[in-house]
């Protein structure tokens, strides 16, 4: 579904992504894990068009994304849930979700809203509440729900567990697993390697802008190297 081939991304003089290639197949959860500054978010931002790669190609459903502007990429079927729960703080929960469907025709939105509420019953309870008054976990759910409102073929989640209490992290990952069961293809970026590997079909480990190791989620979770470096022995 998504084929990333040899991309190189720079922040000014800093060479942040050094020739990364990976792919996401239909129906999979693929995770990119790695330490701070390894380039995980940079890769997501490049796929969603916020940053540009100097070389290589990104193909989505066999069509190149190279020069497509960010707002058109959403229309192609990629939803990006950015890092740090970026919700529209002054809008209500429901208005936030409606914003997620901005690129779609109005016709299917109401039905789709109900589907998102089924996945996130908590959001339905708070539909009229101003998003800025939600807790961190609820804001993360809202950001994910907003991503789903564009009815994406590929959902990209950037560190959904960041700054959440362990019990909320578990909840978020349960939701990710249930979205996967419902057929959504997911590209997940995480620092919480243990949780990410437990839900992922395949995983790539990033180290300073390069892919160091790749394999299935189970393989990597069992590998000694990964256990020592990322899972705390």
């Amino acid at each position, binding site marked *: 579904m998504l084929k990333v081939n040899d991309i190189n991304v720079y922040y000014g003089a800093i060479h942040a992504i050094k020739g990364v290639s990976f792919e996401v197949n239909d129906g999979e959860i693929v995770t990119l894990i790695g330490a701070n500054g390894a380039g995980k978010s940079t890769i997501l931002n490049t796929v969603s068009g916020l940053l540009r790669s100097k070389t290589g190609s990104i193909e989505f459903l066999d069509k190149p994304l190279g020069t497509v502007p960010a707002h058109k*990429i959403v229309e192609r079927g990629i939803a990006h849930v950015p890092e740090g729960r970026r*919700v*529209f703080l*002054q809008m209500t929960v429901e*208005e936030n979700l409606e914003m997620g469907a*901005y690129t779609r025709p109005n016709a299917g939105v109401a039905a789709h809203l109900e589907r998102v509420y089924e996945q996130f019953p908590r959001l339905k309870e708070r539909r009229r509440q101003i998003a800025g008054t939600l807790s961190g976990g609820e804001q993360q759910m809202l950001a994910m729900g907003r991503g789903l409102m564009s009815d994406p073929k590929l959902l990209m989640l950037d560190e959904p567990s960041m700054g959440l209490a362990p019990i909320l992290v578990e909840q978020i990952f349960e939701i990710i697993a249930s979205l996967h069961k419902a057929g959504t293809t997911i590209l997940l970026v995480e620092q919480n390697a243990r949780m990410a590997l437990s839900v992922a079909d395949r995983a790539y480990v990033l180290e300073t802008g390069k892919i160091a190791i790749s394999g299935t989620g189970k393989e990597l979770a069992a590998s000694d190297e990964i256990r020592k470096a990322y899972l705390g022995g």
Partner: protein
Amino acid sequence: MKNLKKATKVDFATYLGVTVSFVIMYILQTGGHLSSSIAGQLVPICCFIVMAVSLNLVVGISGELSLGHAGFMSVGAFGGIIAAQSLAGAVPFAPLRLTIAIVVGALCAVIIGFVVGVPVLRLRGDYLAIVTLAFGQIIKDLINCLLVGYDSHGLHIMFNISGLKSINDLHLEETGKAIIKGAQGAVGITKISSFPAGFILVMLALVIVLNLIRSRSGRAIMAIRDNRIAAESVGLNITKYKLMAFVLSAAMAGAAGALYGLNYGSLVASRFDFNTSILVLVYVVLGGLGNIWGSIIATVVLYMLPEALRQFSNYRMLVYAIVLILVMLATNNDQLKALLRRIIPTRKEADAQ
């Protein structure tokens, strides 16, 4: 009225308030009950209401700081004056000529708005403030170089960059008229602005801005203000919506400028300097960012205030500043806010009920 949304009710109250105030003032004016100083302020107040409402679109709704709003007013004023003066023979009916002048003024401001907005709105941060600040100064100097006259051959426009030329270098015919005489500004303007025209322009600006805010595009503009990255991630074209707000605001400022310019016999470019931009910004900030009816009230009160303070003579601006500070303190006072909320429920509480 009960099934109407709260926002719609506020909009209707705004229209109603403006209309009622207009009718009262108009009756007083035609009846000759207004002092000449107040009657003379009616049209400028309408112009500045349009200025404040349009600036609120950029600063309050779109969340970008613009410090050169008077520049667009200036472009609109001189564009409108040129149109009205040169069409004096062709279109003798004054209200029609005024309408044409206002449209021309708005179009001139739109063009300049694009020129300023297209490069700057792609950037993040304070660049718009810096560039609009410079723009306000540049436009003033450019208009000071402008020589425009009109005769049977049509418009003569000359750019007096060297500073050595004068209106005589246009070589107008005997019957020709000078319209803009460089640093002396526009002279011999036929005053065709009227209070009803000002009212119509205010209503037009309100209809445009209030409907925009409640529309799909307005929601997008506010989403970009709230969180740029989230807005980008849901597929909004950031530059397009920012430009839409900015250019629309420039157009309304241009229209207000044309009305303002045609209210006086002569007009110099330095009337629209940095102070004027800041004055409008003060109206917007004191009225409340994003609050349209607040802008209207703040404009009326703060425009009248210096006149009302004439008795303080030399201390006038000092008292003006103190009043501004007191208003700011009062509107930030929690107890006063709570009292106001009891009278006018806010959106959150209205939704909770």
